[in-house]
C-alpha cells in the first residue's frame, strides 16, 4: 500500500516536472501566434476584468503597506504626528492615491504632448494591473490590448520617461517589457554631447541602467540627459521614436568609459511604482 502511494507520488511529480519543462521549451520555440500563447492569452483575457477590479480594490491595501514602509524609513517623525496620522491614515491614503494618480496622468500628458509622439501615432493610456513577483522578469501587465489598437513592439512611456515596449498582446491586456528587463536594449543618445550607445539593464537594480557600446574617446559627464536615439537606416529602424527621455547619467568615470565604453544612468520613470502608462500606437485598429 505504502509502496503504491510512493510510486503514485513520484509519477505525479515526474509528470508535473515534465509538463513544466515541456511548456517552457514549447513556449520558447513557438512564435507569438502559437497555440500556447493563444491559451495563455485566453486565460489572461478571462481574468482581465477580475485583475482590473482587484487592482483597484486592493490599491488602498497596497498603499497602506507602502505607507508603513515609508513611515518606517522616516524615523524622525515625532509621536504626536504619528498618532495624528494614524487616525487619518485611511482618508490620507485615499486622498494621496487620487492626487498621485492625477499628478501621474498630468505628467504623462505633459510628456506625450511635448513633441515626442511621432506623426500618425495615437497614444493610448492604460492602467498597470499586474506586476511580476520576481526581479528576473521586469514586466508589467496593462489593461489595454489589441482591441485598443496596441500592437507588439509599440513603445510605452511612463509619467517621467521611457518605460519599455509591448511584447505581447491579447484582446484586453498587454505585456510591457520594461527597460530594466534582461531582454531590453534601447539605442540612446546623450545630450548635449550627441554620443550614441545602447541602454541595457542591470538586473535586480531598477535604479541603475548601463549605456554601453559608446565610441572610444567620448567624454560623458554626470548629470547629462539620455534620450532615445530613434535611428533609422533603410528598412531597419528603432521601434522607439527619437527624443523620449530615458534617464540621467549618474556614474561616468573615465576609466569605465575607456575600458568598458559604458556609463551608468538612473531612469527618470519610477518603474517600480507606476499606475498609468501611455502606449504610442500606430493608430487604427489592432490586430
Amino acid at each position: 500500500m505504502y509502496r503504491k502511494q510512493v510510486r503514485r507520488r513520484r509519477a505525479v511529480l515526474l509528470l508535473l516536472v515534465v509538463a513544466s519543462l515541456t511548456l517552457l521549451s514549447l513556449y520558447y520555440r513557438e512564435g507569438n501566434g502559437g497555440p500556447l500563447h493563444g491559451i495563455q492569452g485566453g486565460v489572461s483575457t478571462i481574468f482581465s476584468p477580475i485583475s482590473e477590479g482587484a487592482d483597484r480594490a486592493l490599491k488602498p491595501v497596497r498603499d497602506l503597506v507602502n505607507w508603513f514602509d515609508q513611515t518606517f524609513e522616516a524615523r524622525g517623525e515625532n509621536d504626536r504626528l504619528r498618532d495624528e496620522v494614524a487616525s487619518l491614515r485611511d482618508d490620507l491614503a485615499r486622498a494621496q492615491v487620487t492626487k498621485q494618480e492625477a499628478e501621474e496622468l498630468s505628467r504623462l500628458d505633459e510628456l506625450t504632448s511635448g513633441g515626442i509622439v511621432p506623426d500618425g501615432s495615437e497614444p493610448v493610456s492604460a492602467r498597470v494591473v499586474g506586476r511580476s513577483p520576481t526581479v528576473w522578469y521586469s514586466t508589467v501587465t496593462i489593461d489595454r490590448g489589441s482591441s485598443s489598437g496596441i500592437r507588439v513592439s509599440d513603445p510605452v512611456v511612463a509619467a517621467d520617461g521611457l518605460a519599455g515596449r509591448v511584447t505581447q498582446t491579447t484582446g484586453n491586456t498587454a505585456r510591457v517589457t520594461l527597460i530594466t528587463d534582461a531582454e531590453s536594449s534601447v539605442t540612446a543618445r546623450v545630450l548635449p554631447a550627441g554620443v550614441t550607445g545602447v541602454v541595457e539593464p542591470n538586473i535586480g537594480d531598477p535604479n541603475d541602467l548601463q549605456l554601453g557600446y559608446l565610441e572610444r574617446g567620448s567624454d560623458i559627464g554626470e548629470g547629462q540627459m539620455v534620450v532615445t536615439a530613434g535611428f533609422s537606416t533603410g528598412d531597419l529602424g528603432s521601434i522607439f521614436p527619437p527624443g523620449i527621455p530615458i534617464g540621467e547619467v549618474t556614474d561616468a568615470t573615465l576609466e569605465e568609459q575607456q575600458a568598458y565604453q559604458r556609463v551608468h544612468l538612473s531612469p527618470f520613470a519610477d518603474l517600480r511604482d507606476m499606475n498609468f502608462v501611455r502606449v504610442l500606437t500606430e493608430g487604427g485598429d489592432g490586430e
Partner: protein
Amino acid sequence: MILTSGIVARLIALGALASVAQVTCFSKMDVFAAGPDVALLIVISVGLLGGSLTGAVFGFSVGLLIDCLLLQTLGAFALTMLTVGYVAGRYREKVGPPNRVAVMVLGGALTLLGAAVIAAIQIGTGVDADVSFLVVRDAFTKALIGAVIAVPVLLLVRLVVRPALIDERRASRRPAAPRPAPESQ
C-alpha cells in the same frame, strides 16, 4: 488532508485568489524594496498541510495561472511553485506537522528556494544583461518577509481547508465515554 470535492473547490478558489492578489497587489507592494511573495507562502502552507502530492499539484496550478496572468514564459513559475510545494509537503511527510518556529524557518528557506529556482530558469534560458548583486538582496529580503508572515498565512490556509485536516478532526472528536470497569468475581 482528505480531498473531497468541496475541499478541491476551496483550493481552486484559494489558488485563483492568491494568484490574482499576488499579481495585482503584493507584487506592487514595496516593503524594504521588495514585495512579499504571498502566493508562494500559500503554496508552502498547502504543502505543509496536505503533503507533497497536494503541494506539488497546487503549486503547479498556481504557478501556471500566474504565468498566464503575466503573459510570461509559460512553465517558469509553474516549475518554481511545484518545487516549493513538493518540498514543503515532503517536510510534512518526513518530519510531521511543523511548530511555529519551523513554519517561520520553512517560510524563509523555501522563499529562498523559489528565488533560486526562478534564477536558475532565467539563467538556463539565457540572460544577456549584467546581473546586479541586488538580486541576492531582493531574495533575502523576500525570504525575511516570508519568514515573518509565514505563520499568519499558514493559519489562514488552515482555516480554509480545516474540514479536510485529519489532525483537526481528531482534536475536535469528543473523547469516548469511559467503559465501566468489569465486576470483580
